[in-house]
């Protein structure tokens, strides 16, 4: 039952999606390829679409994966899976209204959690770079992709260009080059 599997998978991801957005990319990617729903390369396109859509990246990716795997119902159960944990946890925290994020224990948990999330995202970048031929082989395409990667990173970090423009400009570059 693929709907149940989608729901369960994103429910589990929903409960651990600390740090939001890109932190969940490697988690979703691993689940999606373990289940055989998509290849890593296909999933890279999902992130591109999710990044171009309004709203949160991780939830958007889940909706897209759900839709591609099992149509509109797949999209619905995946979205629900992602948001139900947030709803439950917020209801608990808000009804006690305790400032749990100011407790020293919670702060020390985040002291360990934050660098792990950082590592997770770095790993995701590495993995995507390898599967999409940005690094690895020495060929004209691989070299030009590394160039596009470098320029995009420069544009994001130094020019503070909005991610949507980076995606659009590199898309146009792709049409011209390949």
């Amino acid at each position, binding site marked *: 039952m693929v709907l149940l599997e989608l729901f369960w998978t994103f429910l589990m991801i929903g409960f651990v999606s600390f740090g939001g*957005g890109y932190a969940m990319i490697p988690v979703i990617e691993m689940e999606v390829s373990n289940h055989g729903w998509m290849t890593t390369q296909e999933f890279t396109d999902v992130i591109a*679409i999710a990044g*171009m859509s309004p709203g949160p990246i991780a939830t958007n990716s889940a909706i*897209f994966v759900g839709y591609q795997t099992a149509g509109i119902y797949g999209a619905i159960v995946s979205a629900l899976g992602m948001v139900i944990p947030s709803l439950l*946890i917020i209801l608990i925290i808000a009804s006690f209204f305790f400032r749990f994020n100011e407790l020293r224990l919670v702060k020390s948990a*985040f002291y360990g959690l934050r660098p792990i*999330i950082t590592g997770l995202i770095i790993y995701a970048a590495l993995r995507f770079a390898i599967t999409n031929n940005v690094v690895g082989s020495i060929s004209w395409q691989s070299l030009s992709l*590394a160039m596009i990667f470098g320029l995009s990173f420069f544009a994001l970090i130094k020019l503070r260009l909005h991610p949507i423009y980076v995606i659009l400009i590199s898309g146009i570059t792709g049409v011209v080059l390949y």
Partner: protein
Amino acid sequence: MKTNWKYLMQIFCSFFKIGPVTFGGGYAMIPMIEREVVERRKWVKTKDVSEIFAIAESVPGAIAINSATFIGFRLAGVRGAIAAMTGVLIPTFLIVVALSILFLFVKDNPYVESAFVAIRASIVALILFAAYKIGLTAVYDKTTVVITAFTVGILFFLHLHPVLIILSGIGVGVLVVKIKDWFGIVTRLEKDEEIKTNE
């Protein structure tokens, strides 16, 4: 308690409007939410809203959805939470589904294919940029540098499930701080936290 449907509808609509116009991830929605609930509707006070965002950021899930849910709950209980959450979610959901359909139609077009070859390379840059941004607040002392490096290494060579790694992060954080306390080493638990000696 009588359900005030008009009020719930108002909450739903306020968050519904915010969704479709905010590109660039959940954080882009934060100023919009603030303007709507603090300035326009006067539902939340300025001093409370930053605390709501801080909590929304530290619980699992997207910050935009979390803060909407939180605000909805404070306004009208569980129903308010659900109204706000669905309000923020539905427009995004519909747009993503529409884009997915569009993408499935055009993805075999040769121009789209070649565009995506290049886009995939800049997605790698986007992900690395996300790591850089989060790293700015996450990695600031020796311990956090070591934890980051270890995480990348473990994922790369042992292929452990990321969910396990995330959950272990909670334990690692608590444990490391305990050990450092035990040795009398002061840990700054947040990057800009003041060390408590001048209080």
